[in-house]
């Protein structure tokens, strides 16, 4: 009897920060999602009434104060639109936590390989693995030093820490996969390798670990619409079978993933994406790229 308390959907942005020229971080009030979030999960959000549904990984959450942290790169219309929202503004729709959580246990020695904005998704996984007793070696990379994010956070959960940049502006010049290869060659016996980042990076990491038979897990980012096990847009080939990243994943055994197909499918709407931006510019809408 009496009234049942159900959290009202009222997803207000409490804090906003530009992490680098392309990447923003927002902290959103979402106590119900924060209460249930686990490492490896994501949310789907829709900025305005007419917006796309966009899947974004949870970078952090605070159960006590009821917030979640989302870090995103402004790559297309929808993420630019999200980036234009300011503190105090509401996100029209936000659903989560979605996807299967990471399998967190004490594997022993784990390498966390992350690239670009994928570092945001890596952080809660690395943190959970560290708390579970693993020795965590982090190898994080970006094109240049300005594009590195969450360095301090990643360091705080790592036993060993390496940075690479494509141009050598910080850490080792080259790719995260080069460092991983060296560590493995020099006796760094990893029980598990996690790779989270651009598909090409995850593919290369997978190729590095395969000859050594090191269990490798990747968190995939295919196109999604509902993100709840309905549309099938997120299908990926894993071990020759079709899997749905939103409900079967997003984490899969890297050595079984068909990365070529994943990369091709990610380009399915590239023409339309360009059109959205062009048309909106033509319509004379304010360019939101540089606001706030």
């Amino acid at each position, binding site marked *: *009897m*009496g*009234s*049942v*308390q*159900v959290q*009202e*959907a009222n997803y207000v942005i409490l804090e906003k920060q530009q992490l680098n020229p392309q990447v923003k971080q927002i902290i959103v009030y979402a106590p*119900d*999602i924060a209460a*249930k979030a686990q490492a490896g*999960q994501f949310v789907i959000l*829709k900025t305005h009434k*007419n*917006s*796309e*549904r966009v899947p974004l990984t949870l970078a952090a959450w605070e159960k006590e104060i009821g917030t979640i942290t989302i870090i995103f790169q402004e790559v297309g*219309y*929808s993420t630019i*639109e999200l980036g234009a929202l300011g503190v105090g503004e509401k996100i*029209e*729709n*936000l*659903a*989560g*936590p*979605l996807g299967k959580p990471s399998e967190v246990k004490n594997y022993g020695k784990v390498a966390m390989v992350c690239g670009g904005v994928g570092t945001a998704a890596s952080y809660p996984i690395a943190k959970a693995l560290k708390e579970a007793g693993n020795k965590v070696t982090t190898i994080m990379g970006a094109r240049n030093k300005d594009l590195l994010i969450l360095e301090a956070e990643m360091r705080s959960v790592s036993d060993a820490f390496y940075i690479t940049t494509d141009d050598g502006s910080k850490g080792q010049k080259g790719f995260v996969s080069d460092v991983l290869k060296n560590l493995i060659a020099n006796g760094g016996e990893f029980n598990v390798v996690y790779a989270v980042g651009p598909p090409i990076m995850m593919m290369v990491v997978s190729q590095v670990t395969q000859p050594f038979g090191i269990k490798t897990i990747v968190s995939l980012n295919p196109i999604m*619409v*509902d993100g*709840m*096990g*309905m*549309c*099938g*847009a997120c*299908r*990926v*080939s894993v071990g020759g079978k*079709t899997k*749905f990243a939103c*409900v079967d994943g997003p984490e899969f055994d890297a050595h079984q993933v068909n990365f*070529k*197909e994943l990369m*091709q*499918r990610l*380009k*399915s*709407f590239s*023409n*339309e*994406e360009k*059109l*959205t931006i062009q*048309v*909106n510019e033509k319509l004379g809408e304010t360019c939101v790229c540089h606001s706030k």
Partner: protein
Amino acid sequence: MSQQVSKPIQNKWQAVPITKQEPARRTKNFQEVVLGYSEEEALAEASRCLTCQKPECVKGCPVGVDVPAFIKLIKENKYQEAIAKIKERNSLPAICGRVCPQEEQCQKHCLLGKKGASVSIGLLERFVADCELKKGINVELVNVSNGRNVAVVGAGPAGLTVAADLAKLGYKVTVFEALHTAGGVLVYGIPEFRLPKDIVQAEVDYVERLGVKFRSDSLLGRLYTIDELLAKGFEAVFIGTGAGLPKLLNIPGENLCGVYSASEFLIRVNLMKSYKFPEYRTPISLGKKVAVIGGGNVALDAARCAVRLGAESVKMVYRRTRDEMPAREEEILNAEEEGVIFKFLSAPTQFIGDEQGKVKGLQYVEMELGEPDQAGRHNPVPITGSEAVMDVDTVIVAIGRTPNPIIQSTTKGLKTLIGGIIAIDRETGQTSLEAVYAGGDIATGEATVISAMGSGKIAANSIHNYLRGKEEKDVLPAKTAI
């Protein structure tokens, strides 16, 4: 078939024809195809009803609408009373009047149908429902709140029915919807030109005005488990989470770009309104030569959306013949009028892609119908050596869906059948768990809007009985103690 001007006719054995948008016009827009009866037409059609003493039509209705009674009220120009009569049994008449397969249900049993055309019950239902929507829905709150909370998971036809029925009985109902808007298949699946989304919204608003609370963006199983809902104080839970992941053909090339599941295609077009792209930001990428695999209503909806989005040719590829198509006859005719080409007795064997991983061909094999099986349905058999390739740049696979797995995998003790359907007692809708009921596609497998509503009605009634029984126990605990 399509007549622009229809006059009420006198012949008792013929139905008053319905006005539709001309094919040449409607293939260029997403507006409703069937325009509905005018008052004059509705009165003429209603006058055909024999008002049988023992009405057969009612037996054909999964929710038991008193058909002769509401038609009699139409004859008397009492449209408000007519809609009230329907709403005693059916809370979503404007929807059912449009998408129910009446020819398989009420109209199938109409006595006039023995000799001529059945009364167009669906169109009459739609007429009075639309009259009410135009005037604004009148909500009378009959029962005082009893303060007892029930949770409904999924705001589709089953969930909306449970919510409305229990709200009318005085329960405090909260509906949890995973998507950003309520309506389920009515908003993500059925296209605007068959069921305008304003109509769905008006019916959802009606349910809300009965006192039902809606909480969108809530994927149950992840945000809250069923156990957590019960722990929160909901005394019963209804699961109506509907169909889930698309079934696949499991043939080579199915993951090429340009091969959509019907679910993705329709969710983009209907729910995300990509037919209004870029005003609505979700894109749809459609080529010139479209093939739709399947022969059901979903396949037809996808094909007809593709026509409206500007495809040069839309072919339906179905492994049996027109006679075996599970789709509604009316919609097959509509699709034919709109230029959809039917390629019967053909089954896909492979999708062929280009260097960029985009589909460019559909290889198929021709079939012939074999001996009828036990159900009397002829199974198609491939004709050896009949493989051929069809030029395509978009394929939509519409061969069904499997139940959404999330609740089942996160609820301890919830029994499921093979394929992941939630096991229920057909008489009551109860699952293997106390206080947990289920209905609609998640409990019956893929079916119609009205059968989902029918199973929702059964569950609502059972939940009411269960909670009444529980109340008696709660009130009289001393009895057993003595």
